């Protein structure tokens, strides 16, 4: 055998990622499982003449149908052709971790156990009889220390040996006791008659176990009424005997098996456990200190992402500016000017627009990797949970939303820290409502033009607050409509604090950066080129432009272009908001990036090269618009039309266009309604 496929399974915080990093190095790919917002990590390695491809399954506590992560992991193990499942078990928290092992055993797959963090377990005074352990579980057991790279060759040897054996599971069964076993056998018997298709696809005992546990996914697959009725009757009967739900009794029996196995193989000499972590937690999640510490750390993350990131961002902008100038000046005079424009404005502008975010993304994910690997992220969720829970979100949602004030693109990528799909989608939908840095350029143009010095900070503050307020309302609405479901009751493990390793942090950071460039980059570039064409074509007659200044010519060209025409065409629609065709045109141009709004408005008003400090543009705006219109423009830009980068990243992260459409249409319609109401009330007053 030369090609081996293995899957890594394990609890969250079991050090699964460190084992994955140890086996694959930096050769990893991150994608989503088709159709679900669950991350799929793949990698490969070569060992002893074998090419091993490795899939890192989502970290789970069991394999029920309760969460999409568990379902994904379970279906992957059942349906993909996997040679070996490597179960990563935290040796220092052995009983709880072995629960997943019992579920893997029930799936009857070839299994190798990595007894990870064996050094931590040793410090805690736990000693394992590895041979006895392997005999009891009927699987190879290898002690590893993932973050130090120890146990790699032993683990690979065990994997290859297990893969070479004729494909069979451990053959080990949990004994659920005479009553349950009796009913399992009964159900198995009925299944083999009534559901031949299902029993071909799945192990029949496993099916019976899942049915008795009332597993919604498997129950949904059963067509035959005789089976459903038998299961109902069995469940009812067992409930009477045990005075508890059968699935709880079965979980209890699994733990019984585990503690039996542990008694024979694990010796405890010391009784010290979470001492150091408890001491840190006494300060970090302290009632009074917890919040200030959290806010302080968030400030550091935000500053690192955007303030430190501003330097490399500036260098990249210079680099692209230099490239654009070089091409323009070296261009053979008067020939193929359209190609020059495409290269400079479309390609360099488009690629530049993507690449300038890279420093932000790398720095943000560096910070997030450190927070996660150290164990602090779980504490952050703990601290923010009370507030976030009120709007139906998870404590962890706070972090991506905060990042949204800098830029939606890294913020949406940061929602990967949320395990729950509905939570994650809700957060992604409302992130564009956080006023990002690019929207600030619009506020910075309009606010000084229309409001006196003393009012300016207040107006800016109000705009930001409106965004947050609407985000809260939209999140609540989404949680009771589209993303309804049991508000995930808050249960979460507080992992012990650990020192993050440089390798793990760097791999994580690099992965995110590369993923961003590859996936989002292609979409953003394509749309940038389309928008470039729309802003430049069709061209007006050359005769028309004769005798005009460069600015006037530029203005004429934009009015004549597709964007200008659309701007004019939608004027009747924009009228109720107090917007004329000039604002409409700028809004359409700003689809590429919000800061483009300012320069587009500059072109429409032929105000020369405009930026947010442009005095001449401000004067023209004052002549043409009222303070109310200015406020409405800001409001519309705040709520509606997320930029293409945001849409592209939403597509990438959710895996579905439908969420992109919902985000774009939903927010734009909302912006229209809110702006309309504000404008109508404003004109009445």
């Amino acid at each position, binding site marked *: 055998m030369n090609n081996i496929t293995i899957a890594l399974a394990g609890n969250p915080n079991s050090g699964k990622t460190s084992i994955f990093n140890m086996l694959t190095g930096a050769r990893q790919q991150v994608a989503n499982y088709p159709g679900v917002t669950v991350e799929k990590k793949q990698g490969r390695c070569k060992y002893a003449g074998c090419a091993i491809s490795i899939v890192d399954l989502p970290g789970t506590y069991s394999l029920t149908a309760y969460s999409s992560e568990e379902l994904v992991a379970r279906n992957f193990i059942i349906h993909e052709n996997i040679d070996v499942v490597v179960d990563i078990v935290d040796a220092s928290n052995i009983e709880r971790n072995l629960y997943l092992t019992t579920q893997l055993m029930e799936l009857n797959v070839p299994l190798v156990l990595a007894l990870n963090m064996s050094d931590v377990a040793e410090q805690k005074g736990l000693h394992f009889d590895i041979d006895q352990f392997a005999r009891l579980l009927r699987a190879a057991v290898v002690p590893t220390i993932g973050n130090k790279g120890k146990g790699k060759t032993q683990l690979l040897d065990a994997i290859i040996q297990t893969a070479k054996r004729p494909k069979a599971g451990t053959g080990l069964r949990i004994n659920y006791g005479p009553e349950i076993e009796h009913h399992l056998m009964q159900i198995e018997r009925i299944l083999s008659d009534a559901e031949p298709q299902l029993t071909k696809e799945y192990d029949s005992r496993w099916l019976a176990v899942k049915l008795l546990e009332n597993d919604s996914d498997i129950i949904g697959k059963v067509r035959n009424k005789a089976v459903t009725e038998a299961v109902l009757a069995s469940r009812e009967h067992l409930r009477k005997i045990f005075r508890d739900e059968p699935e709880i009794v079965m979980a209890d029996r699994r733990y019984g098996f585990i503690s039996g196995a542990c008694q024979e193989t694990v010796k405890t000499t010391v009784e010290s*456990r979470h001492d150091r972590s408890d001491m840190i937690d006494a300060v970090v999640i302290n009632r009074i200190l917890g919040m200030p510490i959290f806010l302080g750390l968030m400030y550091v993350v935000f500053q690192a992402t955007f303030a430190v990131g501003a330097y490399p961002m500036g260098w990249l902008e210079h680099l692209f500016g230099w490239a654009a100038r070089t091409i323009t000046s070296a261009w053979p005079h008067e020939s193929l000017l359209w190609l020059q424009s495409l290269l400079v404005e479309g390609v360099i502008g488009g690629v530049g627009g993507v690449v300038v975010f890279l420093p932000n993304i790398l720095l943000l994910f560096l910070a997030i990797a450190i927070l996660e690997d150290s164990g602090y992220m779980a504490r952050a969720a703990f601290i923010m949970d009370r507030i976030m829970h009120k709007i139906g979100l998870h404590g962890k949602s706070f972090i991506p939303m905060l990042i949204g004030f800098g830029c939606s693109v890294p913020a949406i990528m940061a929602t990967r820290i949320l395990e729950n799909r509905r939570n994650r989608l809700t957060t992604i939908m409302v992130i564009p409502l956080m006023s990002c840095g690019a929207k600030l350029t619009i506020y910075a143009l309009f606010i000084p033009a229309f409001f006196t010095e003393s009012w300016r900070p207040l107006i800016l503050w109000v705009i930001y607050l409106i965004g947050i307020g609407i985000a809260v309302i939209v999140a609540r609405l989404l949680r009771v409509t589209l993303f309804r479901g049991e508000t995930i009751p808050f249960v979460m493990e*507080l992992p012990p604090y650990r020192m993050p390793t440089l390798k793990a942090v760097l791999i994580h950071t690099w992965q995110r950066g590369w993923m961003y460039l590859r996936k989002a980059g292609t979409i953003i570039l394509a749309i940038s080129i389309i928008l470039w064409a729309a802003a430049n074509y069709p061209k007006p007659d050359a005769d028309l432009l004769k005798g005009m200044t460069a600015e006037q010519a530029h203005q004429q060209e934009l009015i004549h272009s597709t964007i200008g025409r659309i701007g004019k065409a939608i004027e009747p629609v924009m009228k109720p908001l107090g917007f004329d065709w000039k604002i409409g045109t700028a809004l359409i141009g700003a689809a590429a990036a919000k800061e483009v709004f300012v320069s587009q408005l500059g072109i429409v008003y032929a105000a020369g090269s405009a930026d947010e400090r442009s005095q001449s543009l401000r004067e023209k705006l004052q002549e043409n618009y009222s303070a109310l219109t200015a406020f409405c423009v800001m409001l519309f830009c705040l709520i509606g039309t997320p930029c293409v980068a945001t849409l592209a990243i939403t597509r990438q992260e959710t895996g579905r266009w439908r969420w992109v459409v919902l985000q774009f249409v939903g927010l734009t319609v909302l912006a229209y309604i809110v702006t309309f109401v504000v404008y109508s009330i404003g004109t009445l007053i």
Partner: protein
Amino acid sequence: METQQLRPLTNVEPGETVTLARVDAGHGLNSRLAAMGLLPNVKLTVISNPNHGPFVVSVKDSRMMLGRGMAQKIMVL
């Protein structure tokens, strides 16, 4: 008779060790909690029980954080 001594986890002081009796929650959640080690007859030690906000308990070899609503549904002896 046992039922008289049952009380929700929220009424347990920090430092106290209690035995889980049952969880008054839906089917799916019950299994999930069981997988995380929160099932009947398990010993729990309350680490922190603030007036507001989540709750920390020690169960088996791990620290679990529970929302208050959740903790209210967990009946202990």
